[in-house]
């Protein structure tokens, strides 16, 4: 690649060469496509205010990504606070909301971490890769906490079982979940497959990962220690999922570059497997100071979050990032969602050992920058990024990572709710005689939502790692954590969009209660909750009301049961036109078993014994 000396007469123009801080300062009036990037007028004004000038193209790309709903939680933040505020005190919680995933101590020296995340939209566009990279993403979240990923679960929702879109999406999603998880060697221990026409254009592909770590191996993302080296490890960076940022190219470059449209992320589970082994070896040898996975917002998110978490600054040489395509622009490199990458903060005297470990596992690792001190006046440091000698980014990292916009969006109970609630089950005809009852039972067990799930779950490896004590079709998956003591955990994920549509507050509580019961019946003690909140557009006051009610219900339910929400994910904009999906809070509960040999499976234990099993009904 040739580096042009900056001698062009119009070096200040963003149209020609990279848009630099210098150019941005000199050309305040250049119109910028911020609206196309999803930023509002007032948001753009605030960026200019923060920077004291217009943002460069790269900076604009970064703000548009970090201030998006997906990254900033701008519509949900004010509600999600309840999870912390109402949570019972817990001395088990080693890391909670705000980290990549919550970490819960389960013995003197062992901890587990778990989290559920959505990959809904990508899975509709490209079912196999969307689902595969959904699994890959949540696994990296778990890995970033210092844990070895040990199991996955996949709550899935599709449109009507006989709809042609379902026929297109479902096989790909299931193959993708299996293809990625199986190749990583992670047993799949449960999930959901739900059909409802409301998910026709918006299938829900949520993925949960469980990880285990020695409590003292907990990692964090802070880029502490000026002088430490910033290392990018894993796959090369390509034009994956660049999304809206491509408008920067099309808006300011000629038509020749129009074909640089965003592209679907393709997962490479083999590289991820190597990344896992390399990271675990680095943790055990105490070679990293901080670590962060690269997810939806790529380098932008990892650089700003690690720096902001430590209050430090960072100096990055962007041309050092290994690229799959040499022609990538700085803003594309910063926005790329290429999979299977991690950002490490490494002390200079450990760099060689880190690179050696990466090499042993055959993964690329490249020093791309260094941590710089906070400013002498106590203010946090700045993130300074150059590209072939041009300064393309100079921002306070916290302004991207922590201080994004926060909205209290208008909420209104949906006008049809009263009608829906009035249509009560008691008014439905009931089977009146044994034949009708028999027919109803047969219809139910043959229905797509209740029938056997083996056709899905047999595409998943449940045995790998040799610690799967219970998996499908049990109520909970149970994983042995400690082979010596038998210590283990039980996990269940549940949700019911129809209940939540009728009453989002109760629907969220029901999902929690169901998941809690599923864990409890195995004999485990429930101790922690994760959740994935799948909703329509937050700009619709009806949806926003559903969201607020669901969060309130889940937070209240957790307070009543005495277990904390330790993490989760919000997925908005699941809607086709103006029609949103049913509000679908998916709740995961984790419980502990002191000895997994004591677990209670759901089948009768002595079906062929002459005395059989006695059957009791507990509750009302």
């Amino acid at each position: 690649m040739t580096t042009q000396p900056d001698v062009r007469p119009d070096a200040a123009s963003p149209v020609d060469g990279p848009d630099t801080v210098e150019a941005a300062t000199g050309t305040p009036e250049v119109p910028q496509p911020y609206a196309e990037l999803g930023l509002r007028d007032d948001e753009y004004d605030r960026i200019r205010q923060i920077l004291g000038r217009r943002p460069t193209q790269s900076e604009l790309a970064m703000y548009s990504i970090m201030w998006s709903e997906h990254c900033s939680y701008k519509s949900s933040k004010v509600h999600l606070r309840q999870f912390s505020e109402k949570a019972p005190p817990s001395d088990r919680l080693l890391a909670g909301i705000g980290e990549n995933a919550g970490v819960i101590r389960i013995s003197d020296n062992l901890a587990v971490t778990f989290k559920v995340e959505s990959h809904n939209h990508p899975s509709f566009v490209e079912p196999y890769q969307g689902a595969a990279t959904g699994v890959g993403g949540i696994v990296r979240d778990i890995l970033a906490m210092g844990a070895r990923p040990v199991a996955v679960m996949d709550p899935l929702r599709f449109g009507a079982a006989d709809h042609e879109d379902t026929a297109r999406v479902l096989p790909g999603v299931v193959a993708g979940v299996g293809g990625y998880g199986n190749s990583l060697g992670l047993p799949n221990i449960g999930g959901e497959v739900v059909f409802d026409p409301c998910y026709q254009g918006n299938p829900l592909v949520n993925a949960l990962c469980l990880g285990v770590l020695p409590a003292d191996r907990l990692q964090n993302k802070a880029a502490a220690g000026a002088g430490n080296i910033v290392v990018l490890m894993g796959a090369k960076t390509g034009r994956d999922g660049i999304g809206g940022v491509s408008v920067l190219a099309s808006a300011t470059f000629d038509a020749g570059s129009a074909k640089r449209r965003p592209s679907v992320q393709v997962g490479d589970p083999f590289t991820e497997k190597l990344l896992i082994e390399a990271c675990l070896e680095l943790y055990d040898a105490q070679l990293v100071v901080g670590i962060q996975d690269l997810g939806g917002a790529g380098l932008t998110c990892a650089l700003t979050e690690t720096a902001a978490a430590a209050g430090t600054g960072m100096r990055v040489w962007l041309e050092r990032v290994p690229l799959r395509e040499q022609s990538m622009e700085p803003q594309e490199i910063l926005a790329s969602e290429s999979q299977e990458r991690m950002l490490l903060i490494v002390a200079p005297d450990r760099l060689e050992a880190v690179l050696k470990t990466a090499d042993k596992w055959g993964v690329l690792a490249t020093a791309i920058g260094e941590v710089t001190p906070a400013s002498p006046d106590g203010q946090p440091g700045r993130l300074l990024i150059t590209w072939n000698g041009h300064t393309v980014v100079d921002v306070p990292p916290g302004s991207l990572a922590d201080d994004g916009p926060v909205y209290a969006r208008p909420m209104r109970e949906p006008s049809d709710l009263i009608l829906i609630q009035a249509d009560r089950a008691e008014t439905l005809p009931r089977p009146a005689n044994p034949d009708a009852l028999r027919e109803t039972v047969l219809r139910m067990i043959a229905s797509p939502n209740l029938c056997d799930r083996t056709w899905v779950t047999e595409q998943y490896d449940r045995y790998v790692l040799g610690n799967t004590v219970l998996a499908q079709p049990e109520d909970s998956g149970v994983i042995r954590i400690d082979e010596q003591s038998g210590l283990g955990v039980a996990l269940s994920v549940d949700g019911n969009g129809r209940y939540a549509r009728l009453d989002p507050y109760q629907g969220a509580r029901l999902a929690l209660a169901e998941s809690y019961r599923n864990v409890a019946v195995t004999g485990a003690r429930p101790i922690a909750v994760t959740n994935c909140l799948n909703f329509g557009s937050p700009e619709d006051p009806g949806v926003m009301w559903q969201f607020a009610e669901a969060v309130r219900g889940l937070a209240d339910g957790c307070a009543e049961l005495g277990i904390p929400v330790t993490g989760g994910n919000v997925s908005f904009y699941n809607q086709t036109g103006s029609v949103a999906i049913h509000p679908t809070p998916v709740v995961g509960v984790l419980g502990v078993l002191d000895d997994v040999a004591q677990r209670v499976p759901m089948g009768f234990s002595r079906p062929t014994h002459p005395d059989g099993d006695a059957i009791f009904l507990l509750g009302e």
Partner: protein
Amino acid sequence: MTARVGVVTFPGSLDDGDAARAVRLAGGEAVRLWHADPDLHGVDAVVLPGGFSYGDYLRCGAIARFAPVMESIAAAAAGGLPVLGICNGFQILCEAHLLPGALTRNQHLHFRNRDQVLRIESPATAWTNTFAAGQEILIPVKNGEGCYVADERTLDELEATGRVVARYVGGNPNGSLRDIAGITNAAGNVVGLMPHPEHAVEALTGPSLDGLGFFTSILKHLAGAPA
């Protein structure tokens, strides 16, 4: 002296820990071998475990075959070293031409994981001598490319010389020709098996304890072998 059984880790191996556990539970000592290290560290036998070596991109086992450790294993196997390839290990043994035939995409095109009944056809190998001929066992299968194929002549020869080690019973999970689940070489020291005995070694985590037989067999074989 406890027998030392090597378990190879390739990049992308997944069931290596499980294979090592199975060796231990059977009473042997598991020795971890690394793909890039040609030194077999004096092991008495080798297990090539399941997984997706090198991502199983291109063809399963195609790239693993060229790992430095495989050169040593191929040479030692020719000299009689017992080698068991499970799933991906079986694929690697075929790609390395230590076993005849090839493993191709499951006929139904899906990855399939289920508990599977097998019939042991040949107890006359280093890895199956504790089973009875015709004994039926239950162990997991899990593969996407487990369909065994070879030309008719090879298949006939395998049958005629007692080299079909195990067959699927009660349903063929992947379309393997003649329901073949495992085969051996002419000497009986190299065995390839598609299903996973290492996942049937503990009552808590497997469908049976039948898988242990493969690992007790190798220990028995080694105990009887001249030092």
